[in-house]
């Protein structure tokens, strides 16, 4: 346990040193804030830069606050996931290549502490970024469009964070089994988008899929109520996360530390 805390602290100092703790939350805030601002100014933007002929009357309904926040969530699902995966891709593979992992593992550190401290570090940065960014976007939505009840915000962000935790855990897994940052990022993003696409095509048969979390988030946001299939998706997601973590630890044990 003590080793785990030491390793976790090392992880956090490293994130502070390469500014991850600063830039990832800022990017999430900006991504979240952009959406309410641009939906608020959309009529004026079209007026000034749209190149529409004089006298065109555009009847654009202003979106409700919930709809704006759903768009924010879908932005996080694309760009946010991309940024998280790209920033986390080297978490184990780069350390193994530079020899840092070897230096850590020479000391009597359990393999599980090493991987779990990495995982906890990634979770910290992911959850902080998501919460801050989402709250900022909620604030701007209330300011510019309309107020959305805070309980819904809270519930939806908690549900959505499960999906992001799943994505980050997958990144950690691929970073353990593969060499090279680029291939880790590519495979993770490919798998994540494959899961989301297959789930959205075969939605009826895949109520257990982790990608359903995005849908449940939207539902909580719009209606404030959870679908009954949420529990199933929740359980499989948590189970997959645990299995992936355990297999990363097992694979990490068997790998050569210096390659």
């Amino acid at each position: 346990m003590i080793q785990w805390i030491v390793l976790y602290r090392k992880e956090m100092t490293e994130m502070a040193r390469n500014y991850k703790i600063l830039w990832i939350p800022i990017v999430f805030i900006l991504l979240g804030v952009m959406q309410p601002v641009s939906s608020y100014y959309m009529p004026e933007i079209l007026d000034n830069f749209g190149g529409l002929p004089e006298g065109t009357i555009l009847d654009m309904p202003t979106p409700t606050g919930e709809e704006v926040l759903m768009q924010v969530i879908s932005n996080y699902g694309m760009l946010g996931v991309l940024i998280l995966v790209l920033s986390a891709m080297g978490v184990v593979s780069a350390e193994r290549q530079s020899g840092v992992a070897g230096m850590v593992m020479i000391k009597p550190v359990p393999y599980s502490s090493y991987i779990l401290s990495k995982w906890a570090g990634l979770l910290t940065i992911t959850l902080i970024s998501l919460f801050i960014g989402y709250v900022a976007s909620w604030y701007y939505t209330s300011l510019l469009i309309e107020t959305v009840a805070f309980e819904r915000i809270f519930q939806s962000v908690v549900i959505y964070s499960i999906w992001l935790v799943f994505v980050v855990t997958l990144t950690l897994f691929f970073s353990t089994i593969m060499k090279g940052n680029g291939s880790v990022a590519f495979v993770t993003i490919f798998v994540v988008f494959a899961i989301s696409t297959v789930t959205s095509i075969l939605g009826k048969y895949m109520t257990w899929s982790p990608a359903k979390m995005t849908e449940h988030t939207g539902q909580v946001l719009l209606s404030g109520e959870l679908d009954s299939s949420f529990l199933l998706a929740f359980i499989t997601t948590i189970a997959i996360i645990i299995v992936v973590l355990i297999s990363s630890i097992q694979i990490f044990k068997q790998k050569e530390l210096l390659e």
Partner: protein
Amino acid sequence: MNELLNGIPWGAAAPILVLHLILMITALISCIREEKTNGSKWLWILIILIINLIGPVLYFVVGRRND
């Protein structure tokens, strides 16, 4: 022009501008302090300064050496 400037709700716009600035400045500091970046340092400084939001993010993701 003055009318246009007055039309902007600064209370809402100022935090966004400040965040953009913080992001740009941290990327610049990090880039200048780094001994070696992936690719030319001057090019990265230009990218960070010119391309809004995406420039600093690109630098942090691709430009920094990971070790």
